[in-house]
């Protein structure tokens, strides 16, 4: 390795580097801490200094780095762990991004939309240039031949531009019609196509009713809305993927000859032997092959007291190893009854949510048939009044052009883009496209306890009753251990400004506790069984201390409630939301957390299916429930809730099931999300009202045959701009949580 590092590459090698493009491999790393120009340089330089890296390009917007690796000789080429280690050296955490199929597909959609947007913009600007001349020419001295020339030039630009730029709408409308459905793209496509066809016909005849400008501006505006929507979605999904990839674990695999190598957790296969150090997260389901330790399973069950494991015990991916070192044999995840059950529950729960119809689609289902009927009515009325079929068709088409739902189609996406970017800047990633809409209708909130209402850290229950000398002695033992309880004791001692003396010779017996022999007197700190405390003494204590001949002393621990849990619950309750706490943890612990956060409705010791049942119960009462949870045991409930959120620390199944993921310690994100969701819903409805008001003015005009191309172009552009401008207000507007209707 040293030798290859020093040896200068010969010219020949360099030549092969240029040729062998097929040996290049691209890796994308998520580096969330890239925030400025300096970071770009540091990260890129660090990566480019690794031998075998041929290029590194940081992307500040995505917080990612694309690294091109050159695989010319097998032993010298760096791998992902090397890159991550190099970045760690310069102070950045990184992880490989594994993109889902959906992300790749939507990347494709955005890169398809933007060129179309460019073409539509070019065409719209140039046609408008010609149209304005024609409109002003009508009032002055333009003669008909020049007008016809301008119409022809417009047609020349508009026809190819519409044929190219309008494809996304035509395709979507066609597939909707094929499935015997109506969506917003049906009236849009109809409007665009009819406007173009009629304009072409009028141009050939040398007529005046030429709507090329309206048609292409329409396409331009709609494409703006759609590409913004799509790129926002790509950003949100990218941010969610960044979070998940940072949580992805690497595993230390021990091969049969005893050598170890590091593998990403997803590359593990059944039968592999994995070494797990103290305090590490377990990367895969498996059985303990050797070692003893205790496992913190709070992410799986909500239970905060660790479980003791020894050889033969089952362990779950995502749980945290305590103080001992374990070797586990990886088993197939499906074999596991708990995970399999959760998978089944989730599948059933998701089906119940699938029925939600998005706001825009609901509007389209009413709007599309209505405008088509209006068009027909116009045609029939003009025919009946004896105007001849040509004039009647012209007026009917004018109605369809004017009702082409540009503003209506922008109404929801514009609001959603504004809402999602507002939330993203506050650390909330909205993943599901319709999630925000569903959240706007929520009237009850159900929290999970461990990891959601509380943080993943425990504190010693210390009402200043613990004797300072005792605490000092216990802490000097505890300071040698990485166990969360031991660390909590040390923190408590420091908080009381007790000097903790380090002692030498403390032994840690994994799964039991600490032992220290000083001048023939043994002190023990650990489980009740380890110190020999009876079950009758202080049943809630989870850690015990015993000095040779004294009676054992028990210590209680509670998990830290998120700093603003109480405010959040109060804010929700003041707005009329019903708030509940459902946990898998012991009832006493749940009661404490409920009291600390002022939640009156709580249930403890619930299994995943009982949580699911409770959500179903709320639904059958007519509640629309927001489930907030993080554990594996919450996943089915998250999938079943009307909407769902999870903290960024949640297990990946829960993050995948949730509509939104919030980062940071503050629970207030839930309130903020609900506020924005409510406001987004109000604004979407406002936008619908604007669009309907626009139609109420211009449709009668069109039916009476009073709409000229100038009026059409003005009216349609104005309504789109008004709707978008209204939506943009959401980014900065001050919001208040609006009261919700209560059922009970």
């Amino acid at each position, binding site marked *: 390795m040293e030798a290859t590092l020093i040896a200068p590459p010969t010219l020949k090698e*360099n030549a092969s580097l240029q040729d062998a493009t097929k040996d290049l491999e691209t890796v994308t790393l998520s580096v969330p801490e890239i925030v400025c*120009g300096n970071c*770009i340089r540091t990260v890129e330089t660090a990566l*480019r200094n690794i031998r075998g890296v*041929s*290029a590194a390009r940081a*992307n500040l*917007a995505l917080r990612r780095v694309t690294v091109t690796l050159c695989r010319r000789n097998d032993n010298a080429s760096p791998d992902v762990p090397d890159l991550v280690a190099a970045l760690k050296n310069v102070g950045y955490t990184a992880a490989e991004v594994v993109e889902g199929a959906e992300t790749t597909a939507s990347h494709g959609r955005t890169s398809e939309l933007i060129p179309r947007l*460019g073409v539509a913009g070019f065409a719209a600007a140039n046609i408008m*240039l010609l149209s304005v001349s024609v409109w002003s020419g009508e009032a002055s001295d333009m003669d008909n031949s020049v007008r016809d020339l301008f119409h022809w030039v417009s047609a020349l630009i508009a026809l190819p531009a519409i044929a190219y730029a309008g494809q996304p709408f035509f395709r979507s409308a066609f597939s909707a019609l094929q499935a015997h459905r109506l969506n917003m793209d049906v009236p849009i496509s109809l409007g665009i196509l009819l406007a173009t066809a009629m304009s072409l016909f009028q141009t050939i005849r040398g007529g005046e009713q030429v709507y090329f400008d309206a048609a292409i501006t329409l396409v331009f505006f709609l494409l703006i809305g759609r590409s913004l929507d799509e790129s926002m979605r790509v950003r949100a999904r990218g941010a969610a993927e960044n979070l998940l990839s940072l949580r992805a674990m690497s595993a230390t695999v021990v091969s049969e000859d005893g050598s170890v190598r590091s593998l990403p957790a997803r590359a593990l296969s059944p039968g592999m032997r994995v070494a797990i150090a103290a305090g590490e997260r377990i990367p895969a389901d498996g059985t303990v092959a050797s070692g003893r330790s205790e496992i913190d399973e709070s992410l799986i069950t909500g239970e905060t007291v660790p479980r003791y494991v020894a050889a033969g015990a089952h362990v779950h991916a995502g749980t945290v190893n305590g103080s001992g070192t374990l070797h586990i044999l990886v088993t197939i995840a499906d074999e596991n009854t708990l995970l399999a059950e959760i998978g089944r529950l989730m599948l059933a729960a998701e089906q119940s949510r699938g029925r939600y119809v998005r706001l825009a689609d609901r509007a389209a289902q009413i709007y599309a048939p209505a405008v088509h009927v209006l068009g027909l009515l116009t045609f029939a009325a003009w025919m009946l009044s004896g105007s001849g079929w040509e004039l009647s068709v012209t007026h009917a088409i004018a109605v369809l052009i004017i009702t082409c739902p540009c503003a209506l189609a922008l109404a929801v996406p514009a609001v959603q883009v504004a809402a999602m970017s507002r939330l993203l800047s506050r650390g909330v990633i909205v993943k599901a496209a319709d999630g925000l809409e569903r959240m706007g209708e929520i009237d009850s909130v159900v929290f999970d306890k461990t990891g959601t209402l509380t943080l993943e850290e425990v504190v010693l229950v210390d009402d200043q009753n613990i004797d300072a000398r005792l605490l000092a002695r216990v802490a000097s033992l505890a300071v040698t251990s990485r166990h969360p309880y031991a660390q909590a004791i040390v923190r408590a001692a420091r908080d009381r400004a007790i000097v903790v003396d380090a002692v030498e010779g403390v032994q840690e017996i994994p799964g039991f506790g600490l032992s220290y022999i000083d001048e023939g007197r043994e002190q023990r700190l650990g489980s009740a069984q380890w110190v020999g405390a009876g079950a009758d003494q202080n049943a809630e204590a989870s850690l015990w201390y015993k000095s040779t001949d004294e009676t054992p002393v028990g210590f209680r621990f509670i998990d830290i409630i998120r700093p603003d849990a109480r405010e959040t619950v109060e804010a929700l309750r003041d707005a009329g939301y019903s708030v509940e706490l459902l946990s898998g943890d012991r009832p006493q612990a749940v009661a404490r957390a409920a009291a600390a956060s002022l939640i009156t409705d709580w249930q403890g010791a619930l299994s995943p299916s009982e949580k699911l049942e409770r959500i179903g119960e709320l639904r059958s009462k007519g509640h629309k429930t927001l489930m907030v949870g993080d554990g594996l045991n919450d996943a089915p409930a998250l999938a079943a809730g009307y909407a769902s959120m999870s903290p960024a620390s949640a297990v990946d199944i829960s993050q995948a099931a949730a509509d939104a993921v919030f980062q940071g310690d503050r629970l207030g994100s839930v309130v903020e999300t609900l506020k924005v969701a409510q406001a987004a819903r109000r604004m979407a409805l406002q936008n619908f009202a604007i669009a309907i008001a626009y139609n109420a003015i211009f449709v009668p005009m069109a039916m009476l045959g009073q709409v000229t191309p100038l009026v059409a172009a003005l009216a349609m552009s104005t309504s789109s701009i008004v709707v978008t401008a209204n939506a943009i207000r959401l980014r900065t507007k001050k919001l208040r949580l609006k009261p919700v209707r209560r059922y009970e």
Partner: protein
Amino acid sequence: MTSLAWLIPAALTLGLVGLGGFLWALRSGQLEDLEGAGWRAIEDGEPASTNANEESADRHA
């Protein structure tokens, strides 16, 4: 009115040049990181293109 004969093509050509420029920029990935591009512009010392830099570094190594 004869000036229209060259004014219209001129306007269209200019427009097409702009469109071509946009599509070229899009295809060459210049719009991929709008935030980072701003930072790179004010950075001094290093060449803008990381690819070129890497190749030259490799050659001198």
